[in-house]
């Protein structure tokens, strides 16, 4: 007990470690619960710029709004999300290897970083977005990490295609899923490994890669060094960090992470099927839904009267962004925003629009439409885990 007190401390340490709460900063989202906001404080992980801490251990840190203004998110400003607290350090990961096999593989193979580097390399720019991004804005609030809008980033990922790696083991006729886990784990033996799976066709898709490079640099430790699975267009629950095992499997993965967590009500959202995991009630979350974010201004900001340029990002599951429209009359009429230079169909699409700020305030709404035809809904589609919140954003701006 005494040791625990020493480790975790009590109020005595508060003065020495007090930090400015995000609530006191410029861009707290009013949708976060009061009380939750007090836990969201600026903090820095080794090698990272200041991020918004939601939980220290395991580390869950999101990007402040201003880090999302660039179309490519810098590595040291990229959000961090872990389920389990035991994360190998860089020294331990120098011995990293990737075990490849499974009951539907033709053979077992162990690969080093050098082995991965010998395979043909490909590059994809893609948004990495936590399934629970914006969970903190759910109404009613639901349990889990209370993310605001910054559990995402866009990066250039480079490495071998997953299908080329899997071919080294040989994909047997009985294969139905590719299962995988990373090197991070829980602190006690009874905590299961965080393991996930993909349908074989998604694993073999030409865009699915094992990234050994992020924005032309090694991956930061906190984003999956030395190798991470990249599944462009799907939420980040499948983007396994510190990827250490790939199993070509004849049976569906039946663990907490596939059967209980990361599922959405059947029929509520568009998205790829996951035939070996879908059921009549619910199904695994798969594709990212079309969304947009204003990054130039935060809700409650004050602007000068006259023309004001608002700007931000839009993204979807890889169909690409067709248009971004802005309304300043409560959604009665919409005007097309200007699309900037895109970063590829899976990446951020920058956009901007000029609105007129008049005395008394202005409340721009921003609505992205994907090339698939999908459009952001007026209200979030409520689900118990707070996934896929892509409701049209409305900012209330004061006019000085």
């Amino acid at each position: 007990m005494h040791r625990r007190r020493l480790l975790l401390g009590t109020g005595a340490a508060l003065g020495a470690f007090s930090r400015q709460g995000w609530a006191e900063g410029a861009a707290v989202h009013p949708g976060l619960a009061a009380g939750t906001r007090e836990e969201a404080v600026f903090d820095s992980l080794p090698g990272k710029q200041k991020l918004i801490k939601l939980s220290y251990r395991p580390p869950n840190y999101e990007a402040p709004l201003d880090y999302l203004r660039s179309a490519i998110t810098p590595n040291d400003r990229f959000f961090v999300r872990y389920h389990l607290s035991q994360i190998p350090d860089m020294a331990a990961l120098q011995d990293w290897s990737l075990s490849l096999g499974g009951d539907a593989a033709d053979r077992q193979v162990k690969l080093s970083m050098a082995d991965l580097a010998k395979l043909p390399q490909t590059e994809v720019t893609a948004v990495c977005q936590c399934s629970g991004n914006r969970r903190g804005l759910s109404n009613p609030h639901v349990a889990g990490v209370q993310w605001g809008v910054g559990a995402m980033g866009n990066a250039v990922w480079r490495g071998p295609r997953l299908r080329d790696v899997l071919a080294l083991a040989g994909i047997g006729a009985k294969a139905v899923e590719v299962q995988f886990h990373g090197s991070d784990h829980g602190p006690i033996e009874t905590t299961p490994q965080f393991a996930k799976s993909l349908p074989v066709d998604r694993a073999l898709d030409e865009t699915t890669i094992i990234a050994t490079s992020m924005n032309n640099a090694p991956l930061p430790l906190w984003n999956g060094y030395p190798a991470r699975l990249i599944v462009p267009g799907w939420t980040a629950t499948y983007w396994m960090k510190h990827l250490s095992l790939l199993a070509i499997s004849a049976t569906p993965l039946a663990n907490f992470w596939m059967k209980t967590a990361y599922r959405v009500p059947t029929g509520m959202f568009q998205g790829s099927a996951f035939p070996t995991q879908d059921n009549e009630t619910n199904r695994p979350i798969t594709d990212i839904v079309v969304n947009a974010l204003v990054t130039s201004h935060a809700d409650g900001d004050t602007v000068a009267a006259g023309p004001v340029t608002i700007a931000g990002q839009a993204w979807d599951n890889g169909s690409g962004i067709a248009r971004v429209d802005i309304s300043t009359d409560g959604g009665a009429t919409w005007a097309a925003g200007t699309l900037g230079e895109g970063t590829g169909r899976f990446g951020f699409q920058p956009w901007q629009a000029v609105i007129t700020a008049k005395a008394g305030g202005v409340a721009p709404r921003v609505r992205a439409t994907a090339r698939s035809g999908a459009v952001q809904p007026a209200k979030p589609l409520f689900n118990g885990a707070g996934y896929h919140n892509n409701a049209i954003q409305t900012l209330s701006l004061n006019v000085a």
Partner: protein
Amino acid sequence: MIRLLACLLLCATPALAAERTVTLKPGPGVELMEQNCSGCHSLDYVRMNAPFLTLDGWKAEVAKMRGGYGAPVDDEDAARIVAYLAASYGPAK
């Protein structure tokens, strides 16, 4: 335990100093809560969800920790932890 000791040597350790600022409200069951929960996660998880989780919500969270994350907490202790959480944290607290 071997795994834990190995990781004390080999793992990246997130901000432990900062984590010391995260404390829970005093009350019956708080020490049981810290003993059973803080080995695996910082207690800001509790405070982050505290504004809105009801008795049923805390029950579901403790069940998730036991079933999903393999927390070795027996029924009796789980009930005491839920009682502490519901008495100390929630929409009306």
